[in-house]
């Protein structure tokens, strides 16, 4: 799980960096400079916004869907030790048993490495 989480975090950071370069790079190349008054549009959107913001936005949304639904692992989150007092004396045995049962029933997809 720790390894899964770290691996997924690396992929997410790489995607974030790609979006940064694509969005800011394209917008700067196509949309910055002395304003001329006339602007090329696509569907009424300035072309630099279309290629620099809207297209990567759609791509990032599609990637988020595919990555989260298809590639992220379904890991076991573990038992919840809620309402344990600071001294550890306030544990409700029924709650812990229920949490353990819930954890057992959870579907596993990727499992632990």
């Amino acid at each position, binding site marked *: *799980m*720790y*390894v899964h*989480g770290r691996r*997924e975090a690396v992929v*997410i950071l790489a*995607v*974030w960096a790609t*979006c*940064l370069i694509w*969005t*800011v790079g394209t*917008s*700067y190349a196509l*949309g*910055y*400079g002395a*304003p*001329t*008054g*006339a*602007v090329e*549009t696509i569907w*009424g*959107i*300035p072309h*630099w*916004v279309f290629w620099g*913001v*809207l297209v990567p*936005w*759609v791509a*990032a*949304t599609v*990637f*988020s*869907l595919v990555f*989260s*639904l298809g590639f*992220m*692992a*379904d*890991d*076991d*989150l*573990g*038992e*919840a*030790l*809620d*309402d*344990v*007092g*600071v*001294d550890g004396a306030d544990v*409700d045995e029924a*709650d812990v048993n229920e949490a353990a049962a819930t954890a057992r029933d*959870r*579907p596993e997809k990727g499992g*632990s490495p």
Partner: protein
Amino acid sequence: MSFSPVCHTMQLAILSPANSFALLGQTRGTANSALLTFFGYTLAVFLLAWFSHQVLAKRRFMSEYFLGSRGLGVLALTLTYGATSASAGSFAGFPALIYAHGWILALWIASYMIVPLCGMGLFGKRLNQVARKTGSITIPDVLRERFESRSIAILSTMLIILMLSVYLIPQFKAAGLILKALLADVGLLHRAAVVVAAWTDGVPFLHGVDPEYLICLGCFAALTIVYTTFGGFRAVVWTDVLQGFVMLFGVVAMLVLALSQVGGLSRATEKLSAMTPPELITLEYRSSQPAPTAGYRIADDVWFTMGSDGLRPRLYRTNEVGVIPPGQTVSGEVKAVRITTPEEVDRIIQQYDVPTGFPWADPVTVEIVDHQNYRYGADQPGVYVSGPGPSPSSDGGFLPLGLAVSFFFFWALSGTGQPGNMVRLMAFDTSRTLRRSIGMLSIYFGLIYFPLVIIFCCARVLSPGLDQTPDRIMPVMAFSLSAAADMPWLAGLLVAAPFAAAMSTVDSFMLMISSAVVRDVYQRNINPGASERTIKVLSYICTLVVGLAAMFGAINPPRFLQILIVFTGGGLAAGFLFPMALALYWPRFNLKGALSSMVLGIVTYIGLYIGGFVYYGRTDPLEPLSLHPLIWGFAASAIAGVVVSLSTAPPPAHLVKKFFHRDDGGK
């Protein structure tokens, strides 16, 4: 296009007495619809809080009240995360920026494309797992357990209490103003305001405060405090779901109406590309004789012409109400704008039937005392449809390249590091819920933020001349779009969207502060053996006190509210993002590294703000290499965390084993 510095004077009259609420040129006729909408919405919120309280009574108090028993499903997690992220700023400050600077705001907000993946995907599973494993209820809880240290828990608790308390104030103010706009035509509010004004007149703290605003602020505070106090986290989440749907409906409805009324997006962009930034005007009203006992009240949003540029008259719009007090002859300074785009001047004069000169008669005159051109973009057509966007205060434009990069860090990574967002990641039930929520939230944000850019680019064309008070553009558009579509009932629902945004942020943060005080300060450090009843009573009292304190702070809030929002949000991220990231993913990260990372991140961030205040004499921060202080705060936090950890003793082996190894020895 330049304006003569000579003061211009013209005859102006008639006015309404200062205590009259009749607004010239504003007949909305939506009072009943707005009231009905508001009552319906309020009823729904209270019902959800009541149901939540019933659930609370059957569960163990602490984890239910502050974490909803870690049972959030897909819809609840998606919308509570989305609604908490979308504060009043998303529906008041952001539309105002779009209105003022045009299409460049699409780039400013662009990193929201990746916010769900970063915000939920980077920490989600690991944070939830660690919180479950240690029984943690709050973020300081997690850090305390991870490092077995009271000092880092206290430091993070203090940061959360301090920063979130400040953050609440602008949210309360925005909500009060939105509610006031929603109920502007309601006679009951006007009559109540007269009574309240009489009560508050002798109270120094309340003297001069708009009584209508005071009432609306009180209503918002009462509603939010009551349902948050008694419903706890579950009520907050359930109302977040309701508010999430209200926001989505509001945006979609406004998009359809705005596009249909402007004649299509191509037409709106074409008009925008021809626009040049307005001249920002300060004027005073003067009376030839002392004002009567009721004073003179000159309405806001009035179009008038004065002088000419040869071919066409100079066209102005007031942005504020002017008042000449009883017995005096001069008003306070009033903000106004002069429209500088020739085609726009012709269109507005024709469309609004603006008379030559002033629409009033004696005995009041108007005098222009100051005017200011935009420092970037003045007289340049196309500046609203290109980068870096027009700016009245910066020679480099609104969004130079360095800031564009900074904001990509700001929204995606700063959002990830917000304790208010992180605590939601401790509350979902299974990792399947998290995965589905990431996908759903990606679609939700796409449907909210990009359409907002389109709507308020259209607003520049549909409601021109509000550049000095752009924060009002959201309610102005809601009322004008609904009226033009002949659907006045819709205005109440549209205005409910920003109201819901403020409410969903306030309730979450009130609970965060309350949990920090009760769990992290009282139970952890003062009375570890406190009974559940004591904790329960203290939690209720604490939530109540936090809400009341924020309400009092919003009665006379500081002027630089938007700066406060950015400052506190960035400060929390600078202090929490890297300590939490390294704590979750780096076994070698130790306590000294965590403390250094947190302290240096926040000190660097605040230091650049203080440096800017000393250097510039105003609230702008220092931005080395044109990068926002948050980037430097992140850099300092990351470097300090890594360097200090590597140069000091490794963390105890049992902690590494506990958090980075399975019971069977795997990772």
